[in-house]
């Protein structure tokens, strides 16, 4: 019996070995290297000139107005996108879960934008929202002078946010939908017998039972939103313009490392983002654990 257990342990780890190796070599290894880079003045063009600079990169970042701007853009983006997309996703899921005809079609239609490449989506929206594009043309028929959307300091970030919500709300809808279908029908029937109306049923059955799913969506969407890059890159052609209005943290790190070849500085910025994401995830897990207990 004991021998069999030992065999199971050995076999278990043998099966896990390819996964553990690939994570160790291609993720944890590079992460440790990035940590060392973040304390150096390093460019991959002249690696022999690398210098140890201590905390200089981190201290400089705290006084770097573009990095601060990138952080605040990313925070605005994340809060706006996550809140709207989680609420909208739930509403859409409730619609898709009700007894309407063509439910499958509805579900698939919402899901299509989520499998479309973010670059393709950005290109589609750039054309729709260009200064003399279709959206502004329709607005002008109602006497509204539309802004230059992606080229406007004020509207560029909200435009990217809108695009992100449009393209990912389907994912959250689908996950909510699965959660809704897991709620036992008997609960609703019992509530109906007790005379609870639709709103009461939603607030006292649907919402509480959906809590784990909401939490899951929250974690996934925040982590995704903090890493926004593709859309900002395509819309601003990589420079985060106009006037850094679409500069996100990841775009900033990319430019530092691969346009200005300042990899030490870029790695320090990446580490700050890494720590923010980890901290948020841990906080969310702690809150969630409290709730389930």
């Amino acid at each position, binding site marked *: 019996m004991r021998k069999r257990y030992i065999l199971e342990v050995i076999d278990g780890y043998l099966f896990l070995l390819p996964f553990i190796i690939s994570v160790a070599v291609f993720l944890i290894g590079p992460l440790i290297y990035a940590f060392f880079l973040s304390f150096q003045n390093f460019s991959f063009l002249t690696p022999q000139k690398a210098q140890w600079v201590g905390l200089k990169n981190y201290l400089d970042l705290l006084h770097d107005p573009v990095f601060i701007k990138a952080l605040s853009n990313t925070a605005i983006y994340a809060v706006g996108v996550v809140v709207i997309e989680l609420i909208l996703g739930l509403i859409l899921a409730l619609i898709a879960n009700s007894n309407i005809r063509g439910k499958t079609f509805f579900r698939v239609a919402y899901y299509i934008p989520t499998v479309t490449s973010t670059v393709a989506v950005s290109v589609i929206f750039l054309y729709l929202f260009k200064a003399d594009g279709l959206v502004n043309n329709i607005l002008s028929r109602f006497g509204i002078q539309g802004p230059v959307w992606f080229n406007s300091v004020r509207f560029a970030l909200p435009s990217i946010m809108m695009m992100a919500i449009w393209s990912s709300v389907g994912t959250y809808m689908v996950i909510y939908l699965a959660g809704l279908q897991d709620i036992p029908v008997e609960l609703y029937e019992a509530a109906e017998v007790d005379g609870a109306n639709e709103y009461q049923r939603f607030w006292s059955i649907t919402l509480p039972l959906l809590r784990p799913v909401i939490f899951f969506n929250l974690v996934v969407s925040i982590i995704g939103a903090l*890493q926004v890059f593709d859309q900002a890159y395509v819309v601003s052609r990589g420079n985060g313009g106009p006037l850094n209005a679409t500069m996100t943290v990841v775009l900033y790190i990319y430019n530092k490392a691969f346009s200005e070849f300042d990899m030490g500085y870029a790695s320090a910025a990446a580490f700050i983002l890494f720590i923010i994401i980890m901290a948020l995830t841990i906080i969310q897990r702690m809150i969630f654990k409290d709730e389930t207990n």
Partner: protein
Amino acid sequence: MKKNRVNISGILFYILVIAVMLIILFPFIWQILTSIKSERELWSIPPIWIPKKINLDYYYSVFIKRPFLTYIKNSFIVASSTTVFSVLVASFASYALARLHFKGKNIILSLVLAVSMFPGIAIVSPLYIFMMNVHLLNTYIGLIIPYTTFTLPLAIWNLTTFFREIPFELEESARVDGATYMQTFMRIIFPLAAPGVFTTAILSFISAWNEFLFALVFNTKDMMRTVPVAIAMFPGEHELPWGDMAAASVVVTIPLIIIVLIFQRRIISGLTAGAIKG
């Protein structure tokens, strides 16, 4: 009286459903219409909705004047290799996590979770240096490696869920007959979980097909670019080639839409596996 009210709210509800649906689908329809317009129709102000006749110039331009087939080939090779490696590595790991009992399983599960939260940008620089030193920049393997690593968590979540659903009796009887864990995995678990494996494969393929950051950084030679990077590089110095961009984005999107239409049930069940049961 009451029945009448229900009908009106029912109709309003449907109008809402259709309106939302239009918002979702319209950008695609508009993009398809744009891609078949003539040069004059494309630039006309106010915009023309329906082109007079189907014009395939932009498709011609994308495929003949630009090496778009090469980009598609690059994307396809990278995405399908990623899918194979990811499913292979993930199904070994998932078999252990779903079916075997041993200490440290929870640590591995948290490792999977940590990887799924991991921001790619944190390791782009060090991986770039690594790839440069081993001469893997501008190669397929250079992209397949990070893609496989990053698709593993989702693949493992999915497959673990699917493997758990297979009855234990089947495995037990094989074990009694003296089969090793490897044999039971290959002959019983893997074949029985085929639908789950297939779902996982589709999801891995889609995420590798659409990936942008690593492809942009690692494969900078034009002939090694993947489709998303190629489209992002279409804009020239002055004018944006809207027609080419429309045609190209239609070409990359249509295959995925077809996949979703055919396999929607599977994809959706795969996507929710991690969230609901995990």
